């Protein structure tokens, strides 16, 4: 069996779906953020494989930009998680929709 473009795309699809399942199924905010990082990385893998197989170098520039944006997003997301868990003393997603906790102080 020879490795070709579709194999990379299949790995990318599987990684994306695993990350998507993590966003849907977990309630821990930190793990949801990790799953978002997984999905961004899966898209990056498909970008780079298209770039190499079709000789489109600008797709690698797009992958580079995606990496920068996702690092920035992780910074903001982690700051928000620190604030949320300091205010509500836990890292569960569903403290945010419980009206008992959300009254402004």
């Amino acid at each position, binding site marked *: 069996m*020879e*490795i*070709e*473009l579709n194999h*990379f*795309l*299949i*790995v990318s*699809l599987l*990684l994306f*779906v*695993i*990350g*998507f*399942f*993590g966003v*849907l*199924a*977990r*309630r*821990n905010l*930190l*793990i949801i953020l*990790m*799953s978002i*990082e*997984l999905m961004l*990385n899966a898209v*990056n*893998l498909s970008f*780079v*494989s298209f770039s*190499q*197989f079709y*000789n489109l*170098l*600008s797709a*690698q*520039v797009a*992958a*580079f*930009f995606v*990496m*920068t*944006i996702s*690092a*920035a997003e*992780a*910074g*903001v997301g*982690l*700051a*928000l998680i*620190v*604030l949320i*868990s300091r*205010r509500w*003393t*836990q890292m569960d997603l569903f403290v945010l929709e419980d009206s008992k906790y959300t009254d402004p*102080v």
Partner: protein
Amino acid sequence: MDFLFILFSALALYGAVITVTHKDMVICALHLAGSMLALAGLFFILGAHFIAGVQVLVYAGAVMVLFIMVVMLFDLKRKKETLFSKGLWMKLASLFFLSGLIVGIFPFSLHLFPPRSMETIQKTSTKDLSSLLFIDYVLAFEVLGILLLLIAVGVAVLCRQRPFLQTPSEKE
């Protein structure tokens, strides 16, 4: 090359599955780092050496340090959430629909992109990539620099102590 591809993709998928399903956040973060490193290996066998190096530096270096630091800020002995603790039926339903997504996209993609072997990969150098990045896309690059500055300032502003963000014990 086949062996390396199978090794790295299996490592990446294994790390991703453990990241999503494990209940301990430290183990999740470490498996995420392993998954990112395996993806860097995949970039390397694709021939994108610059992107592979940036992947190791940015994800396995910077982002992972951020995650581990945030995990360290909190009490780890608290009751941990497992994947099957609450809302099991909704999780099974989402798993069902996502597997449908895989089964739906998979044959479609085989028709959409005709097979290309690894021999069609032309050797791209970092020099070509840098000339593209610093000449054609230089405006986007500079805007990204401004965005990172804004992020740094915004996070510093967010994490300042403010009255409505204190814990109930701190207010008394």
